[in-house]
Structures are given as structure tokens and as C-alpha cells.
């Protein structure tokens, strides 16, 4: 009987298989080649090696699993409140420090303000891995560009590199960024969305806490803020996100970028300290825990030493 690549026909041949929810062991989504009942993938003559770049195979697999009803585990997202504003001498960026995995706080003090260039920093919201990877990659590209041109990197360069990368992945790279910096053309602040669109704004907020932070900005922002006013406003906006949004919390990170100087103020504010920590510590004395049963298995050595073998030949 000839091999068929038709799924329905295969269900007829292997009726039990159709009952299992997960059929990925039977199908190689890459080429739609069914595996034999021994689980060996039959290779076509024209099986070419993948050429590099992102492989969407797993995305196809994930979609297939979803259709079958298998739930995806939640990503570690950054929840997040990230903000940026332009003040008279440059830009101030701010971020909270909570990273969530569904309802659990995965990291109480993570760094969301990423280095792009000595004069450009980027806050990231969305999937933590995506923001890290994309900012690292663009930072690397900017460094190579600096060597090639011999000049300081420009914010629009970083912006274009980010947006073209995100657009080519059609929103699958879940990174929402607030990009800010100062270059020869002046201070710049942009937001970048996962699908690759960008905005240029005097003040911006992103993440789950963006509405809380934006309410602060909309009522208090004005042009020509001084450095102290700018930092204070950013900290206030992040705090609004921290206290009013579940996805944001812990501490406030601030980064001030001006012409010729950048200050990364890690943990600028710590509004959520652990107040009730026992200074005496905890002691666990032997005998406090009730022993229900004891079983001791002695470890037997399986290594046998044999004395006196022949010396190796030269």
C-alpha cells in the first residue's frame, strides 16, 4: 500500500492514534511527512538544511497544540510600568522592577532599563526574554556601526534597527519598548510596539501600568522641566504604576541621559521594603521535627580496582 501523506487516511489506518490529543509525535510539521509507526521520520530526497534566521516550526506546532486543546504555560512577562520623558537637558527613563510569571512574582528586582549605547538606553515591557534578546542584539549592531562610522550612535538608528526586526517577526517577538537617548541632533524619546510601529513623543509610558503612569504625566508634565523635576515626575509615575497595577511592583529604576553624560540610578527609590524581618533568625534544632520512619541504604561501590596491568605502549 503506498504511503499517504493524508492525515484523514492515516486515522483510518491507525484508529487508536486519533484518540490521543497530542499527535505531534506522528507528524513533522516542517514537511508534513508522517512518521512511520516506529517513530522514524521518513526523509524526503529534497530535505534541505534550514537556512538560518528564525524558524517558525515551533509556532506551527504551538498552534496545532492549541487547536487540540493543550494549554500553553504562561510566559514570564515583565508586567511592568515603563516611562520616559524629555526635559530641558535630555531624557529621563524610568521603570519598575517586578517580573511576573502569570500570578507569581518571578523576580522582585529585575533590571528593565537596558543598555543600547553609552548615550542611548531602552526600557522593555512584554516578554522578558524578548526584550533582553532584542535590546542585546541591537546594542551589538550599534557597536559594530560605531566602529564602522567612527561616530556616536544616533537614537533613530537604534529605533530603525528595532522596528525593522520587530516588524519582520510580525508581532511574535513580544517586546514593547521605550527608547530614549541624546545624540548630536538632540534628545529623543520613542515608543516601539511589538508589531514594529513607533511613536515619537515628549513623554511616554508602556506596559500594564502605563495608564496609571500616564495619568501622572498628563496632569503634571510641562516643557522645560529641570533635571530634579524630571526625575521626581518619573519616579512619581512609576510609583503610580507600582501601587495601582498588579503587574508592576517593588522598586523604581531611573536613568538620566544628557549630552555627554549618562547616569543609571539603579533602585532610585525603594518604596516596598520588607519591614518585618526577624533579626534573631530562625533555628531548627534537632528533635523539633518528628521522625516517622527511618530507612538506611548503604552505598555500594561499583568501581573495582585491579592491581598491576600492562603499561601502555609508547
Amino acid at each position: 500500500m503506498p504511503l499517504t501523506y493524508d492525515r484523514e487516511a492515516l486515522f483510518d489506518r491507525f484508529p487508536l492514534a486519533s484518540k490521543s490529543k497530542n499527535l505531534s509525535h506522528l507528524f513533522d510539521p516542517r514537511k508534513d511527512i508522517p512518521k512511520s509507526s516506529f517513530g522514524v521520520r521518513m526523509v524526503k530526497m529534497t530535505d534541505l538544511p534550514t537556512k538560518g534566521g528564525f524558524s517558525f516550526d515551533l509556532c506551527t506546532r504551538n498552534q496545532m497544540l492549541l487547536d487540540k486543546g493543550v494549554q500553553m504555560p504562561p510566559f514570564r512577562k515583565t508586567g511592568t510600568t515603563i516611562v520616559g520623558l524629555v526635559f530641558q537637558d535630555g531624557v529621563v527613563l524610568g521603570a519598575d522592577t517586578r517580573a511576573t510569571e502569570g500570578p507569581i512574582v518571578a523576580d522582585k528586582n529585575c533590571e528593565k532599563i537596558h543598555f543600547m549605547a553609552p548615550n542611548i538606553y531602552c526600557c522593555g515591557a512584554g516578554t522578558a526574554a524578548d526584550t533582553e534578546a532584542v535590546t542585546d542584539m541591537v546594542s551589538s549592531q550599534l557597536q559594530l556601526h560605531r566602529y564602522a562610522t567612527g561616530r556616536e550612535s544616533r537614537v533613530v538608528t537604534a529605533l530603525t534597527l528595532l522596528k525593522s526586526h520587530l516588524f519582520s517577526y510580525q508581532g511574535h517577538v513580544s517586546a514593547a519598548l521605550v527608547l530614549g537617548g541624546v545624540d548630536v541632533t538632540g534628545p529623543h524619546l520613542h515608543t516601539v510596539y511589538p508589531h514594529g510601529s513607533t511613536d515619537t513623543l515628549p513623554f511616554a509610558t508602556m506596559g500594564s501600568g502605563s495608564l496609571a503612569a500616564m495619568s501622572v504625566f498628563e496632569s503634571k508634565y510641562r516643557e522645560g522641566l529641570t533635571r530634579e523635576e524630571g526625575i521626581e515626575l518619573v519616579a512619581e509615575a512609576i510609583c503610580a504604576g507600582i501601587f495601582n497595577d498588579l503587574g508592576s511592583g517593588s522598586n523604581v529604576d531611573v536613568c538620566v541621559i544628557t549630552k555627554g553624560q549618562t547616569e543609571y540610578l539603579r533602585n532610585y527609590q525603594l518604596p516596598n521594603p520588607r519591614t518585618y524581618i526577624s533579626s534573631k533568625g530562625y533555628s531548627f534544632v534537632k528533635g523539633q521535627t518528628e521522625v516517622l520512619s527511618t530507612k538506611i541504604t548503604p552505598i555500594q561501590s561499583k568501581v573495582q580496582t585491579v592491581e598491576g596491568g600492562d603499561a601502555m605502549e609508547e
Partner: protein
Amino acid sequence: MGDSQYSFSLTTFSPSGKLVQIEHALQAVGSGQTSLGIKAANGVVVATEKKLPSILVDETSVQKIQLMTPNIGVVYSGMGPDSRVLVRKSRKQAQQYFRLYKEPIPITQLVRETAAVMQEFTQSGGVRPFGVSLLIAGYDDNGPQLYQVDPSGSYFSWKASAMGKNVSNAKTFLEKRYTEDMELEDAIHTAILTLKEGFEGQISGKNIEIGIIGADRKFRVLSSSEIDDYLAEVE
């Protein structure tokens, strides 16, 4: 690639066991402008002649000494365009290393990878060996280091080395002048004197280039006015 006329390697063994193309490549290096490097106790200095083909060339647009990473620099003798290709590849490799290990690439690793590229071009189809020798200078956790990489892909660590036209005179001069406990400033003076030895014409900040790296681990190329200051000290 496959069946073209040039899919075989252009570097093939001669009956005496030599790779003639590499010998010729070394000739190309030997007829290039002199360059040298000196490893001091607290840094490294590299220097090269910058003879331009005509007085009409804008000398500010030419820079022979390049940075590969903030703490590793390189100078070449031989064909300039070939060195550009190598510098570009090495910069990219340094970035890839950093992205993988989150550590600035150690000099030995970068030298090894650059040398591997150069060797590749002696054993691939349809390409010729690079017509440059590189002097790679840097300062990392293992201290100041100086490496020379040849068109064959072999590399050596040197305390002081020279390449190009005036190599034998320069090396003899360096052998006499080199001391283990040289400071960076002394090394710069020695480098200038070595270049002066075989220099045709009037030496000045405009027709030589000097790159230095000290304990601050920041490689930088000296400006022509700084070079003029050093030249005045040496007089």
C-alpha cells in the same frame, strides 16, 4: 559554487612542500609600509608609516590603525583593503563572543579567530590568501599582549615585532633597544626611533600613525599633534 573553473583551491602544495601562494602573500606584506609593535610592562604601542600616494590625498581620511574592541587594536602591513575585510570580520566575531558569554573577548581568542579566517582563505575554493600581516595589540585580564598574524594563519606572541619594508633593520634595532621592564612612554619613544631608522623623508605627525593602550584598557590612536610632541621629545 560546485562545478566552476575556480572551485579548486588556488593554494596548492609545491613539490618541495611549500605553499607558493602564501610565500607570495608574504612578499606582498614585505613590500608594504613598515609597521611595528612593542609590548611594555604597562601597555602596548603600535606604530606605522602612513605614506600617502600623493600630496593631494586628504590624510585625515586615512586611518591605518583600527579598533577591534575598546581594548584591542590592530595595525597591518600589506594590502589595505584586505585588512579592512579582516577587521570587519574580527569586530563581528568579538561582538558575537560578547553576546554569547557576556564577557569582553580575550585577546588570545580574537587572535585565534582572526587567524582561523586567514587560514580558511588558504584552503578554500576560488579565493586567495590575504595579503596582510596584522599586529594585534591589547590589554586584558592577562595583561598587555602583542600578537602577529601572518597570511598563512599562523600567529605568534611577541615582545616587540616589525613587519613590512624595513623589517630586518627594524627588528635588529628593536632587539638592541628592548628591555623587559620598559614603560609605555619609553616604548613610544623607541617605536618612533625605530620608524625613523628607515624613514625616507621628513618624519612628522602627519606621515606616521601611533596607537597605544595602557592600564586603562582603552585603545586609542594618537592625534598628529600628540605625535609631534613625542617627536620633539625624541629629537
